[in-house]
């Protein structure tokens, strides 16, 4: 018998696309975690007078490295998928399994970061929120934490969970709302879209939107789950949708991207738990957000393939679940769908009436142009008022001796650079990532026994982060300068 087994083609383009999305997300998270651990190592080593090694951090670095090396041992198979070469079923399954185990290592190390000194969030994350919500003094603090707290729990939920009473909660949040961000998202402006969702919860609370929709305008304090679970669940489900719509309103389709990528990377779906019960299933959330965006005339064409890959991923993971867990998720989904089917329009109308600056088709178009600038490895903080062609044409129309200085200056002001919106930067960042990551993966995994060079992907992640952070920072500075120079 020959030692060479039969081969088959990768199931479909969508399957391949999904796998590449997961691969890119995993390598990003790996790269960011390695950076965090290196910084922790420097910090701890500097603190130790005797110059002892930072053993706990070294252990985590070593653990992550073992997972990384295990995964990289399958580099040639990864390269084959990238190059659309046929693999047999066991080889395909091996790549998927190796990736799932790499993600397992990443997620476990991420949880353990709770035990290490916490870094501070980037100021650019606040700049993004200020710009999106049009507030110069946005009252919100961002704290770094684990994935569960960042993506499924609110700080307020944690305080309630540990029985901190209402009046004590007020004093704990005097500095404003506390928004949780995953450790690994610290340097990643593309993931900061989640903060817009979190701030959406804060707006929901202050405007009592979800509470009034479910309980009526005269309702008192939000019901506690233990007091009235029949009412608490609909309020929570509506609250999630309010926050989703607010984030989509100010950020467009980018608002859901980090959530979908994060879930695609998880090796399996979580069953319904007390903590997650208030979250409608993500495919339903994605559907409602798309419908909401359509209602404000924003298309999702640029990111449709992410939505499609996510749907496929979710369906397959749902099938992977224990039957009972699957039934629970599906039952919860049906309940949420029934509830939101009748309330989504009311929620949309309430969100629309908040007066927030919307992300519109013009913003999407600007983001597409900015993506091209990002490809040139340049920051994307501003745009000229007029195109080069437009300005040349108008300059040519000026007549010596006839044109007044005012007319000439009117044309020349089109050379002014105006700051773009932070939401356009984040969207451009996502478009750039979606259009570029596969090429970088191919360079990272050249195949044919040449081994993978993970530093190529890490450099790409770091450079993209730097460009986006720099852009957000420049927008904040530029906007402030223009505000101060503007006639009062």
């Amino acid at each position: 018998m020959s030692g060479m087994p039969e081969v088959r083609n990768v199931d479909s383009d969508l399957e391949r696309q999904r796998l590449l999305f997961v691969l890119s997300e995993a390598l990003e998270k790996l790269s960011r975690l390695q950076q965090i651990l290196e910084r922790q190592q420097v910090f701890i080593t500097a603190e130790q007078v005797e110059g002892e090694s930072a053993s706990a951090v070294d252990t985590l670095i070593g653990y992550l490295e073992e997972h990384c090396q295990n995964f990289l041992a399958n580099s040639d198979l990864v390269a084959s998928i990238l190059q659309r070469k046929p693999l047999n079923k066991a080889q395909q399954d091996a790549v998927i399994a190796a990736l799932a185990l790499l993600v397992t290592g990443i997620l476990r190390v991420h949880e353990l970061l709770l035990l290490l000194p916490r870094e501070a969030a980037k100021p650019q994350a606040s700049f993004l929120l200020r710009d999106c919500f049009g507030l110069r003094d946005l009252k919100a603090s961002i704290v770094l934490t684990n994935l569960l707290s960042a993506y499924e729990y609110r700080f307020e939920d944690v305080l309630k969970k540990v029985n901190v009473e209402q009046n004590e909660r007020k004093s704990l949040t005097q500095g404003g709302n506390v928004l949780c961000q995953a450790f690994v998202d610290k340097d990643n402006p593309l993931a900061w879209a989640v903060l817009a969702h979190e701030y959406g919860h804060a707006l929901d609370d202050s405007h009592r939107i979800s509470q009034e929709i479910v309980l009526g305008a005269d309702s008192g304090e939000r019901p506690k789950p233990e007091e009235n679970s029949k009412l608490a669940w609909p309020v929570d489900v509506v609250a999630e949708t309010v926050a989703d719509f607010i984030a989509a309103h100010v950020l467009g389709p980018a608002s859901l991207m980090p959530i979908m990528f994060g879930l695609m990377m998880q090796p399996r779906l979580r069953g319904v738990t007390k903590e997650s019960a208030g979250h409608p299933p993500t495919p339903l959330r994605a559907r409602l957000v798309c419908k909401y965006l359509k209602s404000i005339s924003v298309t999702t064409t640029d990111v449709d393939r992410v939505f499609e890959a996510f749907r496929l991923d979710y369906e397959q993971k749902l099938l992977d679940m224990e039957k009972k867990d699957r039934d629970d998720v599906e039952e919860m989904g049906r309940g949420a769908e029934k509830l939101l089917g009748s309330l989504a329009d009311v929620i949309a109308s309430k969100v629309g009436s908040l007066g927030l600056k919307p992300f519109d088709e013009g913003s999407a178009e600007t983001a597409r142009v900015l993506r091209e600038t990002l490809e040139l490895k340049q920051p994307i903080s501003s745009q000229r008022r007029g195109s080069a062609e437009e300005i040349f044409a108008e300059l040519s129309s000026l007549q010596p001796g006839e044109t007044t200085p005012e007319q000439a200056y009117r044309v020349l002001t089109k050379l002014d650079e105006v700051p773009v919106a932070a939401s356009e930067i984040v969207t451009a960042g996502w478009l750039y990532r979606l259009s570029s990551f596969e090429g970088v993966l191919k360079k990272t995994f050249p195949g044919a026994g040449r081994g993978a060079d993970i530093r190529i992907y890490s450099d790409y992640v770091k450079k993209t982060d730097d460009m986006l952070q720099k852009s957000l920072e420049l927008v904040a500075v530029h906007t402030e300068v223009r505000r101060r120079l503007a006639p009062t």
Partner: protein
Amino acid sequence: MATATAPRNDIYLSVLAGRAVTALADLAGNRLAWNERVETGLNDGIVFCQTVRARGDRALVGKSSEGFNLLKRSVENAQEANSNSTNPCELSERVEQFLSQVASRKHEPEISELAEAIEFLRKTASYR
């Protein structure tokens, strides 16, 4: 609040599983391939199977074998696949036995067997 959710004594199992997956992937490319990586990986896989079974096991509790039925991959046939279950402990024994036979070079593995073992390792060792 500052509690890690990953049980410490579990966490290295995924490293063992990862090495086993690589060994099985090597054999999936060439069933006659034999080198140190394959040998070590198969032995790590055996240790993995023994450990998860010896532990009781949290890693296996609540995991029916529905994930190990190839039919299950197809959406249309999911219901049939769900009804066709095997005890997960038996599965771990079966995978261990398979790995032992391959490691002792008494058995030339079929692709479907390799795929089944890989699926077992993925499902048992990946993050929950």
